[in-house]
């Protein structure tokens, strides 16, 4: 029989130390850290970052590699502000991965439409990297990203590559002065309405503010898309990540176990719950 000491040693709440191998300031309130963490994971999953004494925060993995994990973090509160002070070479406590991933295998040979708003672009970056690494498995790929202003653009180095690799549409809420990446002024929702045809076989990923997700989904359904073609991400308060603390529940579903990626029809009636 296993003793209680042995059981507690393997506690799922216990984080482990990994090294920060790179730190990059993206915008004035977001930064990206690269962790020397060889973690097997799938697009759409997330991890918990821990600062003892401050707390924990669930953060989506925004890369796709066997050798490292990248996280893009927005400073919105206590934990995330403290985290922003971390430097290359520091150690960080982490646990994961958690969450149900996008079922990428099911999307083989499909066209892909990836739609992100603001910091919602970060979780999608992992799936785009996956698609890029397995380019032959997918059809046409279109990216729609919306940011507040050109200063708020995330992952410029990636976008420089993706603009040639995929069809990329960038939108800004406001443009004062020169635009970049051919970005137009106006919401990403309008761009989707304008550009996307009645693409019966495409799979759509949407991530961003709830209101944006809802608008985009409505537009696509008006265009004849089926709810089952659309995948959205939900964000809820999370403490455990393993279906225990009950905080992330949406109408009976655990965002941490059944999400954070959901197929649109699984959640649509209870988005506000």
């Amino acid at each position, binding site marked *: 029989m296993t003793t*209680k*000491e042995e*059981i*507690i*040693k*393997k*506690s*799922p*709440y*216990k*984080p*482990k*130390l990994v090294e920060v191998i790179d730190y990059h300031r993206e915008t004035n309130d977001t930064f990206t850290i690269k962790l020397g963490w060889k973690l097997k994971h799938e697009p759409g999953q997330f991890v918990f970052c821990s600062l*003892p*004494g*401050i*707390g*924990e925060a669930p953060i989506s993995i925004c890369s796709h590699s066997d050798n490292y994990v990248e996280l893009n973090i927005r400073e*919105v*509160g206590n934990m*995330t502000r403290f985290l922003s002070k971390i430097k290359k070479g520091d*150690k960080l*406590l982490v646990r994961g991965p958690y969450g149900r991933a996008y079922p990428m295998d099911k999307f083989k040979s499909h066209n892909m439409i990836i739609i992100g708003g603001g910091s919602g672009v970060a979780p999608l970056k992992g799936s785009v990297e996956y698609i890029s690494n397995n380019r032959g498995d997918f059809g046409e790929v279109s990216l729609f990203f919306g940011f507040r202003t050109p200063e708020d653009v995330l992952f410029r180095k990636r976008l420089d590559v993706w603009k040639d690799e995929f069809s990329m549409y960038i939108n800004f809420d406001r443009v004062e002065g020169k635009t970049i990446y051919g970005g137009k002024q106006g919401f990403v929702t309008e761009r989707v309405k304008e550009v996307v045809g009645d693409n019966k076989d495409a799979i759509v990923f949407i991530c961003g503010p709830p209101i944006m997700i809802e608008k985009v989904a409505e537009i696509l359904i008006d265009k004849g898309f089926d709810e089952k073609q659309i995948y959205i991400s939900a*964000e*809820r*308060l999370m*403490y*455990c990540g*393993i*279906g*225990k*603390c*009950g*905080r992330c*529940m*949406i*109408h*009976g579903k655990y965002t941490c176990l059944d999400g954070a990626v959901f197929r649109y029809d699984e959640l649509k009636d209870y988005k*506000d*719950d």
Partner: protein
Amino acid sequence: MVKGHIEMFKKSLLFQMIMVQFTIDKGDFEGFLRKVIEKYDLIGPVEGDKSKLRRKSLFRKIVSPDELFLEKKTYFPVKGYFFDPKETLFEFDGDKIIDPKIELKKKVFFGLRRCDLNGIMHQDMVFLDENEDPFYKARRDASFLIGLHCNEGDDYCFCNSVELKDFFDLMFYDKGKEYAVEVGTKKGEEFIKKFSGVFKKKDKIITEEDRKIRNKKKLDTLDIKDNYDDDSWKKGSDLCVGCGACTLLCPNCHCFTIEDEVNFDLKTGKRVRKPASCQLRHFTRVAGDHVFRNEKLARFKHRIYHQIQYFKDRHEEVFCTGCGRCIEGCPARIDWVKIINEMK
């Protein structure tokens, strides 16, 4: 996996042992308890401290058998013994993580009602799934569960309406001069052997009549799928004062918050988990002060739907054990069973 848990339980000894039953003479009962107290911590129902403010019945360590209060179920649930009100998940010193030590003596629980036992079974389903919770597991491993069958319910409970399951190591039935005892697990069988002097084997002594519980209260339906938008939920939420007594008293409710406690050196401390109530506004609050279930109505429905529908959708068991504690303990006297019964 969770399903497996139920299947395993259904294949458990209970179903093989149902014919092998025992009796214990009430004259021997006290002596038996004294022997238990010598060897283990005995946890049982007591009437509550008359001298103090807390007069409601609860489970507590029993020093002498005459402390036991066996007339009816306790006001407070037993869950705190398994789900510690303040569990240390680990201690830290800077970035160094230190495993917590938990002191555990083997505990024998006596006098658990069917609602208490089903509450434990439901918590097992949550905490002992494929992402096993080590703290809950350690506490459960150190426990032995003896039930006491209710012949009659009180003014609040309605357990006949919620499909309770047999879940216990041993179950006692009050038969007047003696208790009849049913064995539920291998652990229960071994326990009986240790006290072979007092337990006498007697086949099929527990009748169908003995297994019945007479309830005063009834929940008319467990199907509330189509009632989510019903206006009458407001009859409950309008009265709610948001105290969280209902979730605290519920044998099932297990939601929690994790937080860090730092010492004055700002370097050492511990990460703890504490119970949280879905009936409080901050339960779903995220950064930027967005609250998902911002209305009392949404929070009230969340509680009832979790109890009646969500858990069943996931685990094939009705969560609510029909104990009525949330109704008895509600300062606003919200009777959600009545609200459902009056719905179309």
